[in-house]
């Protein structure tokens, strides 16, 4: 500021004033000016104006602008784009475009509303060439679509440039390069060379992705023919140029047929068809003139020779032979028969009646020598008869047993049956002869068995009586005697019944005239107890007259009464023709003695206490009472009651003692333990409700604090309630917290207002206030702060207020000025009280 003197500044002021001010003409004025000039004829008629009316321009200028626009757009521009680009009406643009086209002498074309220069076509041709070199082939249609040009126009543009700009061939509507043709040729050559089976040309083209070629299949077949002529592929093009059969395929086909035929001596027509030869029979007849043409297969003469050799062999060694395995499986039975008809050996064997060369054709495919048949009818008859198998099927099975290799022989394995049908008359005669001899055998063995069984039945019955006497001695003890009776029936009774049933069974088998199948094993079987199912099966076999009494005895097995069972048993035995002997004193003593000896021997071997006990008790019993006891093993309780009966002293059974189980859990001590409480309890039981009492806990062995909730003496332990117990550890914490709040209060300079309270709030109890929204008045700030009552401490009569600004305070609501706010937002949002809340000075 100081660098300029006053004079300078005054001069500057002057010069500033002298400066020309910016002059502005309004648009309206200009339009008027131009119209006036036009009116005066000073401006020509070709004065145009832009679309927005802001610019005037001459036709010549527009012409130049259009040319520029075309050049800028790369030589091609739609006329409709011009107005937007130049800001001039379309009509003027069109008019000027016409002028340009006329003046250019073909340098510029107006095609379908587009201005196109020749330079553009050059560029287009170059681009098309590039695409062509890259793709190998381009349909003109694609080009036209790509450049958005008419096909004719494109053709006229491209045709003159072929060879110069575009390097390739133009054929029809297709533009392609020679490299492309070479590539197709290579692909086709490769595919056809790779083909080992006939391929259809269209399928091949599809796989090669050539089917969409615009060149079409004529070109492809031309290519194939060309390749064939050149010798680069070998094969034949059939079916009007649609199927290609490679030479190697025909070769391998013939090779396969030949090798199969030579290896197997035959070839089925279906096999030939599978290999791709349609007219198999004629083909084979020409290929193998020495073979035999059957209905289903073509067979070589070698097969016939081997057939003859096998039959000769069989006839010579007096066996049979099955030609089935020798012949191919594809042959049908009729084929086999025709084949065998041609076999000379078989023919002669059939004709011969007997002798070494005779034989017969059985079951379609089997040649059986006459010698074999004769041998069988002589030797096989008796054996078959002994097994009583006289049906054709059974005979056939028997024959199979003798000649296992016959199983598969013959048509569907029928050889054995065919032989059997021939053998049967001889076998039947043999059987009848043998039958009489067989019948006599076996009577002696049955008698012996019956004796053994009746002996064991007697034995069992004696034991039954013995134990029965023993059990009667225990008659005073209901439970024991019942158990003993049940055991007696189950063990000894069962044995007796089983013996009886077996005895009867032996008789029954004799009646049926059959040899008992399990005769050698009946000794062990007689001792083993029968199952219920076996028993009922046996009963079913018995004759009607004894069946009823036997089944009654078996039924009694499941009952508990010894007398009933004994009656039933005796009745059944009577029906079976047996007499059961009663036990006399002498015999009984002997039995007891023998039994005791047996028990002593077992006791010496016994190690386990329980089994030893079960042995000792009957032993002692026998000693004391002179009678025997059949007790179930490991039957503790009964043993002990028997022991009691025997007056054993000093041995208190451990297992019978009821354990005095300790009941888990708390149990109040019986004589109610509170002197003061007792008065209350007797006088006013209801007054105890709500009081806190100490109850002795047996398990914990200490008093537990609890609240009496109901008169039903149900207890609720409430020892954790902090508000009740004085002197608990949590109290000091609360005081700390309060101190902190007090500190904060002092910081804010807040003096608690006395004589407070709230009219509406007073209606609510202190506890009800918890969870409510309240506004507390702060005198220092002369305003209310809102918050939620989080907790009420009943002992100190303090509410904890959680303010919305995050602050927290413990208040005596009776001394505060406050009012209720809107509804509580719910306890869920009451945050855990933070001990170090942020202080908001506002």
């Amino acid at each position: 500021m100081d660098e300029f003197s006053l004079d300078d500044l005054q001069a500057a002021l002057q010069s500033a004033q002298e400066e020309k001010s910016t002059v502005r003409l309004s648009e309206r004025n200009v339009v008027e000016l131009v119209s006036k000039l036009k009116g005066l004829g000073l401006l020509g008629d070709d004065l145009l104006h832009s679309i927005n009316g802001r610019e005037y321009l001459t036709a010549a200028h527009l012409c130049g602008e259009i040319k520029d626009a075309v050049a800028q757009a790369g030589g091609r521009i739609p006329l409709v784009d011009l107005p937007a680009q130049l800001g001039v009406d379309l009509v003027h643009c069109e008019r000027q475009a016409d002028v340009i086209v006329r003046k250019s002498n073909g340098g510029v074309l107006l095609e379908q509303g587009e201005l196109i220069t020749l330079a553009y076509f050059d560029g287009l041709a170059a681009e098309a060439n590039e695409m062509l070199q890259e793709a190998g082939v381009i349909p003109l249609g694609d080009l036209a679509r790509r450049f958005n040009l008419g096909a004719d126009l494109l053709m006229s543009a491209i045709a003159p440039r072929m060879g110069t700009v575009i390097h390739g061939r133009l054929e029809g509507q297709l533009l392609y390069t020679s490299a492309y043709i070479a590539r197709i040729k290579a692909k086709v050559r490769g595919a056809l060379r790779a083909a080992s089976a006939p391929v259809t040309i269209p399928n091949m083209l599809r796989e090669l992705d050539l089917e969409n070629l615009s060149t079409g299949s004529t070109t492809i077949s031309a290519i194939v023919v060309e390749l064939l002529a050149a010798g680069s592929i070998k094969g034949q093009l059939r079916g009007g140029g649609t199927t290609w059969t490679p030479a190697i395929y025909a070769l391998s086909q013939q090779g396969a047929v030949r090798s199969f035929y030579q290896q197997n001596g035959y070839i089925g027509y279906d096999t030939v068809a599978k290999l791709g030869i349609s007219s198999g029979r004629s083909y084979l007849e020409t290929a193998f003139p020495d073979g035999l043409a059957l209905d289903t297969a073509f067979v070589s003469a070698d097969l016939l020779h081997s057939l003859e050799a096998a039959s000769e062999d069989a006839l010579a060694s007096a066996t049979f032979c099955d030609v089935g395995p020798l012949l191919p499986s594809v042959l049908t039975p009729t084929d086999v028969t025709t084949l065998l008809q041609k076999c000379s050996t078989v023919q002669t064997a059939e004709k011969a009646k007997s002798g070494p060369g005779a034989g017969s054709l059985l079951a379609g495919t089997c040649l059986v020598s006459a010698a074999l048949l004769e041998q069988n009818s002589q030797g096989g008859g008796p054996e078959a008869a002994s097994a009583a198998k006289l049906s054709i099927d059974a005979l056939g099975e028997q024959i199979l047993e003798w000649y296992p290799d016959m199983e598969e022989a013959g048509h569907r394995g029928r050889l054995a049956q065919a032989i059997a049908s021939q053998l049967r008359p001889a076998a039947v005669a043999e059987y009848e002869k043998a039958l009489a001899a067989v019948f006599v055998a076996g009577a002696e063995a049955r008698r012996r068995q019956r004796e053994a069984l009746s002996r064991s039945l007697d034995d069992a019955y004696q034991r039954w009586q013995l134990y029965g006497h023993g059990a009667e001695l225990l008659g005073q003890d209901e439970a024991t005697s019942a158990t003993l009776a049940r055991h007696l029936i189950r063990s000894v009774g069962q044995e007796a019944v089983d013996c009886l049933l077996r005895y009867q069974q032996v008789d029954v088998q004799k009646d049926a005239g059959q040899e008992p199948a399990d005769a050698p094993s009946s000794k062990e079987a007689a001792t083993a107890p029968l199952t219920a199912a076996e028993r009922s099966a046996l009963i079913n076999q018995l004759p009607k007259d004894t069946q009823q009494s036997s089944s009654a005895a078996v039924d009694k097995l499941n009952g508990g009464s010894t007398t009933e069972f004994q009656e039933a048993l005796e009745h059944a035995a009577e029906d079976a023709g047996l007499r059961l002997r009663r036990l006399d004193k002498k015999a009984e003593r002997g039995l007891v003695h023998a039994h005791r000896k047996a028990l002593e021997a077992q006791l010496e071997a016994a190690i386990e206490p329980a089994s030893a006990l079960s042995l000792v008790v009957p032993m002692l019993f026998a000693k004391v009472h002179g009678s025997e006891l059949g007790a179930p093993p490991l039957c503790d309780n009964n043993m002990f009651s028997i022991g009691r009966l025997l007056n054993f002293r000093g041995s208190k059974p451990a297992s019978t003692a009821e354990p005095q189980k300790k009941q888990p859990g708390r149990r109040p001590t019986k004589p109610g333990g509170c002197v003061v409480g007792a008065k209350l309890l007797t006088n006013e039981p209801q007054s105890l409700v709500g009081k806190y009492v100490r109850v002795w806990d047996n398990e914990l062995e200490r008093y537990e604090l609890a609240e009496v909730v109901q008169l039903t003496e149900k207890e609720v332990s409430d020892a954790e309630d902090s508000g009740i117990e004085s002197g608990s550890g949590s109290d000091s914490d609360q005081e700390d917290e309060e101190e902190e709040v007090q500190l904060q209060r002092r910081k804010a300079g807040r003096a608690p207002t006395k004589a407070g309270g709230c009219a509406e709030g007073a209606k609510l109890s202190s506890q009800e206030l918890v969870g409510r929204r309240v506004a507390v008045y702060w005198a220092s700030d002369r305003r209310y702060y809102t918050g939620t009552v989080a907790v009420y401490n009943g002992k100190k009569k303090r509410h904890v207020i959680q303010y919305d600004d995050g602050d927290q305070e413990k208040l005596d609501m009776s001394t505060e000025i406050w009012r209720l706010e809107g509804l509580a937002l719910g306890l869920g949002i009451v945050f855990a009280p933070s001990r170090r809340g942020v202080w908001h000075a506002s």
Partner: protein
Amino acid sequence: MADSWDAGTKQTVQKIPLLTVRAGPRDKEEWGKRLKEELQALIKYIQLNKASDSDWFTITSNKEGTHWSGKCWYVHELQKYTFDFQFDVPATYPAVAPEIEIPELDGKTAKMYRGGKICLTVHFKPLWAKNSPHFGIAHALCLGLAPWMAAEIPHLVGTGVVQPKT
């Protein structure tokens, strides 16, 4: 006259640089500084006017910068009306605004004091007082003379009191 200044005027005034030196013509050294600021503010104002094609006055002063004179003009209905104006810088300047005179219109309009001093709008004086010493001559012209002319000239032309000078 309008009750308040229009938006354009306000905008313009805001563009004029404010002055800082509080000095009147009686203060020797300080006045020099003040005068320089005045001149610079005027130059700026004129440049603004020229740029927006709204140049409406010329002004010059004596060497001391106590007496100012110039021409002001107003275009109404395509006619340009030009008047001479002059004023002296008062001794109490810048506390008191200068009183601009247009002598040739003396007695022709009611909005004028005797001697050709123009009557300014009621808003002018409080504004000046409020902005003293930051307002200068440029502001006085912009906020005083310009609105007066805009209000009075069309009226004077309309009543035929003023004729265009041919």
